[in-house]
């Protein structure tokens, strides 16, 4: 736990008391549930409401205060000064994880009496920063298991392989695409058709390799300690529809949204129209969770609507050829990522008008085009990194592959260092 705190504090020690405060608060609420076990439901509900509200207030203050003020100023012409708060690292993740814990405690599904155990559940460093968002009952039994406390060479090898695959995905693949994405999104006033597609596809690939790279590193690091974190990605760009996509992309967030927002809103239990509304509302919140901006909210709304359309499609019992379905899903996801990446509306419209051909054809740059084609092939046609690692099954091939990828990734990390050109932060550190 100390190591995890050190890991967290390395970024900004000033936020260590914040995360500790949040842990103490949530632990206190969960203890209150135990004391109120025999009390009436209203007291327990009040207690839960205080807990959830406390978490959301913390998140709201740091993440959404300026967004709220900006919109207030815009709507009423007021001139309230912005707070310019720095978003504490991982706040969205540890807040959601603890809300889930409180709800599970309220339902009586989990009980944690030991403060240190609870702290470890929140702070465990591999998943602290950007998930996966874990449940108490999938972590604590593992921490308690005596066998897990011994060094397991098989897990160490597996962990190193998965970790280096993740590092390679991040510093070699994602950070390369980041350059081409930034060139289109940030560097120019207008972009032509080819450049716009290169920028949007580069970001689509960057985001996947960045976030899944982080997740692989988290899973690999946890495996060194014999801890298995839940999978967070399962080849999402192979999805054949938007629901399939959300079952494969950021799987633990999807699980959270389903269990703690969509189902409590009523899920699909109150008729079609209400189901569609619930889906859209859930994904509006999903967009807002990703970032305090209208482009994120719009991105969430697009996905919510797409899920509603898909549900309607199923209800009508309509069919589509799987190739067309896959292509349409990917194109939609790629299109929607434009809003996710754009810092302002005008950046999104710039890329979209380019993608639709309103700014001419442009010039094809060979290198990014080859990279895009190659890595689209990788994400569509090959196994994902976890399947790959499982197949290697700790044989000697795994050692050599880990060595190859590790050496390559470290050389590239050093390249960032010596060029005074820092590698991009993980994208999900911003959320």
């Amino acid at each position, binding site marked *: 736990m100390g190591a995890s705190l050190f890991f967290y504090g390395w970024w900004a020690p000033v936020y260590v008391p914040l995360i500790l405060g949040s842990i103490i608060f949530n632990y206190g609420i969960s203890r209150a549930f135990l004391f109120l076990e025999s009390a009436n439901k209203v007291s327990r509900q009040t207690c839960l409401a205080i807990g959830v509200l406390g978490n959301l207030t913390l998140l709201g203050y740091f993440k959404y205060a300026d967004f709220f003020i900006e919109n207030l100023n815009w709507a009423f012409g007021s001139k309230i000064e912005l707070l310019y708060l720095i978003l504490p690292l991982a706040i969205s993740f540890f807040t959601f994880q603890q809300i889930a814990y409180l709800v599970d405690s309220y339902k009586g599904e989990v009980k944690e009496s030991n403060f240190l155990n609870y702290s470890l559940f929140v702070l465990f460093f591999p998943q602290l920063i950007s998930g996966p968002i874990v449940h108490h009952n999938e972590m604590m039994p593992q921490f308690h298991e005596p066998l897990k406390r011994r060094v397991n060479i098989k897990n160490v090898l597996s962990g190193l392989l998965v970790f280096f695959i993740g590092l390679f995905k991040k510093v070699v693949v994602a950070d390369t695409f980041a350059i081409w994405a930034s060139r289109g999104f940030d560097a120019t006033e207008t972009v032509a058709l080819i450049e716009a597609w290169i920028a949007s596809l580069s970001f689509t690939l960057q985001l996947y390799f960045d976030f899944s790279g982080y997740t692989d590193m988290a899973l690999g690091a946890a495996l060194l300690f014999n801890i298995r974190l839940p999978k967070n990605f399962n080849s999402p760009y192979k999805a054949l529809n938007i629901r399939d996509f959300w079952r494969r992309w950021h799987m633990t967030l999807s699980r959270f949204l389903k269990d703690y927002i969509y189902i409590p809103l009523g899920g699909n239990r109150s008729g079609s129209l209400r189901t569609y509304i619930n889906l859209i509302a859930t994904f509006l919140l999903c967009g807002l969770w990703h970032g305090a901006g209208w482009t994120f909210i719009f991105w969430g709304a697009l996905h919510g609507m797409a899920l509603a359309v898909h549900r309607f499609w199923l209800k009508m019992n309509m069919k589509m050829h799987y190739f067309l379905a896959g292509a349409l899903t990917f194109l939609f996801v790629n299109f929607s990522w434009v809003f996710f990446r754009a810092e302002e509306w005008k950046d999104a419209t710039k890329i979209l008008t380019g993608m639709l051909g309103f700014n001419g054809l442009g010039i094809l740059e060979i*290198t990014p085009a080859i990279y895009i084609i190659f890595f689209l092939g990788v994400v569509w046609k090959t196994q994902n990194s976890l399947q790959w690692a499982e197949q290697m099954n700790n044989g000697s091939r795994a050692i*050599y592959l880990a*060595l190859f990828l590790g*050496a390559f990734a470290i*050389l*590239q990390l*050093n390249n960032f260092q*010596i*060029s005074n050109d820092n590698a991009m932060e993980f994208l999900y550190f911003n959320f």
Partner: protein
Amino acid sequence: MKFLKIIATVFLSVVSFELFLTYSPFAGGVSPVRYDPDVGMWHKSNFHYVYSKDCYNTEYAFDERGLIKNNYSYNPDKQDVIILGDSYIEALMIKNENIVHNSLYREYKGQFNFLNYGLGGTGPTQHLEILKKFADIQQAKYLIEFISLDEGWGRDLEEVDPGEFGWSNRPLVHLKFSDLDHFEIFKPPSMDMKERLREFLAHFELYGYSKKTLKYYKNKLTGNGKNSGISKIPYGLRDWSTNWDQIKGSVYQINKLSKANHIGHRVVVFSPDRNHNEVISQFLEQQEIPFVDLVGELEKLGIGLNSITFECDGHWTDETHRLFARIIRSKFSLEN
């Protein structure tokens, strides 16, 4: 056996990384120059590569003589205009069509063949040797010499440890003037085993990468800054007398050689330091060499120095090259 396999895996990883650097936006560049016994280095013949930094990613090319490629067809029936200069003129970072010699070709409506002999890291001292060794003086009608007196000037004259030189820099020829007419030539060190090895290694991206890595960690350990290879004396306190001797001597000698071959010598000065500009201007006036002061011309146009260079390095942009070609056209009427 296992040990060998491990070595082979790491080797494969390094080779793959070389390929990745070559074909990615992280290409730092392989050496565009080869050893030359008289100047110290010269562009490789028929060479092309990509020059990448945060703010540009440009393909550059040299012709069979190692000159910056023309984007027009050379016409042997026309006379040549020789252009001498440093990395501002070599301009690996901008589109070939905009580099000053190609821009001048357009400005002068194809009246002459404008040939770019620019070489990074050089000053007038080396320009004289480049002129003598590489230029076809008989075919030339004019010579335009660019003299840059920015903060990096005089670097070519310093005794820099060759170990500090990167992939595009090597020890250069030096001239020591006793007066304007008399000088001694200090040739660059001969090509020893170390230099041969460097010549070979500099074909690879990993060479520049390794040099940068060593320099970075050495500086980290010793606490030196980025410019440890350059003079440690602050710019304002430096004694420029040796530099002036060599610059004036070289310009004088270039002018002498030009006159002897009936070539019109013109000088283009770029000196943000106005005191240095004053010194060189007075000298050029004394020698009756026509010249243009680019910074002065920019001031007249109300253009700030910050707007003429790239954000990620201090070299002139495409637009600046085109602008300077227009300024030169307006100042020098080159007659056939």
